[in-house]
């Protein structure tokens, strides 16, 4: 199961390669930039769902705190935030070092006529490699928050929610209520 989740995650990240490449022109540029952000957003959504499955695999832990502290919430958080921090790097690495061909004028799902519209490629590079990772990270986080809430609220699945909210505090630290 873990392998399946891992493979699905990797396929999703490099899934952009499966899109048919389209030409970006000055007329389509603004739409293309939005499409780049949408790609990052969609990726964030997909990965947050996958992460929801991964963190839900970690079992609840009941243990006397005199023996050791509970570790399950910590484990979920470590996995979630590690992936969150790695995602932009993976995305950036893939798009900048593998997908980008400055001579051919291709990046992601776009190619550009660099002879006629040289300025478009830097715009796309900026969108893919600077804003893209940021959007990906942000949407991954936000969708995870949203989905974990939905799962807790409507499907009574609370494990993923503990990543965001435990001990009646956000991330276990932001909030007023304390243990007795």
């Amino acid at each position, binding site marked *: 199961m873990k392998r399946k989740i891992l493979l699905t995650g990797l396929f999703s990240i490099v899934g952009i390669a499966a899109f048919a490449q389209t030409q970006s022109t000055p007329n389509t540029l603004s739409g293309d930039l939005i499409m780049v952000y949408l790609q990052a957003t969609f990726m964030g959504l997909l990965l947050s769902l996958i992460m929801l499955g991964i963190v839900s695999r970690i079992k*609840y832990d*009941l*243990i006397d705190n005199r023996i050791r502290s509970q570790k399950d919430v910590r484990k979920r958080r470590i996995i979630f935030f590690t992936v969150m921090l790695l995602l932009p790097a993976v995305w950036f690495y893939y798009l900048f070092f593998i997908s980008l061909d400055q001579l051919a004028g291709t990046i992601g799902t776009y190619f550009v006529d660099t002879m006629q519209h040289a300025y478009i490629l830097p715009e796309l590079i900026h969108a893919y490699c600077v804003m893209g990772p940021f959007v990906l990270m942000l949407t991954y986080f936000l969708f995870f928050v949203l989905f974990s809430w939905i799962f807790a609220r409507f499907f*009574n699945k*609370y494990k993923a929610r503990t990543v965001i909210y435990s*001990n009646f505090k956000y991330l276990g630290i932001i909030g007023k*209520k304390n*243990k007795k």
Partner: protein
Amino acid sequence: MGNKKDTTRTSKYFLVCAGGTGMRCMQSFINLCALGMFSGQTIDVLLLDTDAENKDKKNTENLIQKYTKLMHSDGEAKANKAGDFFSAQINLYTFIPDYSKETTKRFTLISEIEKGDPAVNKRLGDLFYEEPVQDFDLSHGYRAQTHLGSYLMYHAFIEEIRQANASDEYKSSSDLFKFVDRIREANNEGEARIFSLGSTFGGTGASSIPVMPIAITDAAKIISGGMVEMDNLFYGASLLSNYFTFPSPSDAHKAKDGIIADAQFFPYNSAAALMYYIKDKTILQTYKRFYILGWGEFNKINVADYKTKISGKTGGKTATGGKKQENPAHILEFMSACAAKHFFEHGKAEELQTIATTEMMFKAVESISKGDEKIPVINFDDLVSSPNTTDKELSIDDQFRDNMYAFLSFCSLLQERYEGRTENLISDLFTYNSSYNLSEEEIEALDFFCSYFAMRKETDEGEEIAIPGWFAQMWHSLNEAPDGTFLGMDPVVFGKDTDWLPNWNRLYTETANDNPFDEFVKRFKKLNHNAKGSDYKQFLKDIRSTFTSFTPIVVDPSAANRKTEQTTELV
């Protein structure tokens, strides 16, 4: 929180627990209440003993005290409905005739034989009692001398009520007066069911049961000044014949104490008592129902062996009473408590009125062989009866199973993960955004109760020993019942091989096959969501709803036999 007597609600159920066996039966009854089997009911309990130091009595009082800190009155008071844990209100009263004084420690002193004409008095006394019986120390009870005990108990009752009636100060301090007064009130309101728990073969219980209806009715009449007819008092009792044994006292011990309980005579005591109960006209007219409980040909547990094997305590000399009289729980005591439930909840007052002579209630259980011995097969429907159930509703025995499994699981989980500390479980649940506010008193009571029920650890001469809980003690009393013969449970559950830590995960399909703690929290959260500062009642309710939602594993005792037969055929 109701940790005091609730005298605002009229109770119609009264329980009298007499002697060491009565005390242990009472512990079973308390457990029945803790398991939610008297949901929404109020029960007034009188602990009656002649031995203030009796360890069983102290344990019972202690258990009731803990219980009262957790009890509440929520729940539907219905015979066929099991409710939340600790949902019965118990009002405790205690009466111990004082035989510790220099003027009361012997029959001869109480009867003032030396006053008036001592020679005539002595001859009269000798007509009824042998000389050693007249002279033994009563501070450890009646020592199986029921002919003396019944006489003394009746008079102790009447004397106490007379003294209380004469003085307001005495009245306010007399538990017996308050108990009888509650019975009088219930009689005036139409119905009081009084059930006696005790043995037929020992001392205090066997002495008290025969005289209880007369003593209570006469005492109630004294309080009412004889102005009210006591027509609505209905008496029942469980008659426990001998079911345990202990080593006979040594000759030196016999010589020192003169009169001493000897287990080898218990079968004869029981037989003689039963003959009396079924023939005596006064008994047959006053008691409405008897629940006759015997141990037949089943192996009787030797309490000295138990203490040596299980708790590591060496026996020493036979305990006639006092601090050393503490025996393990037995299934027959639990059945007595279930008999009380049956008496309280079955048949209307009008039906009881029509019973002219005592109804004898009994029930046979099937048995299987274990080596040369026979082992009874006990199911939940042997303990409670469920005459009317609809398809929609679980029968009372199934509800009983659900609650029993749930409570045992909860208590065992606490022991397994938190060394019995509820506080730490609550702390872990807080991490998962479920918060409960329990007072220190409630936590302490719950910790105690769960340890008592599942398993506890004691330090004996610097060494830590595991003591089986009340529930495992009952299993042990059945000669460690194999293959689901005890309530359909896998013997592994009782934790004999795990230092008496019950393997609760083997009670449910879900927890047996997967990580039990993960399954528990998942189900807990699914059913109860995020509790925010809920009280102990809600905490127990949530715990119960979680465990009862799992699928119970019921082991079929005959399955093992079938398997053996099949193997034999193949060979």
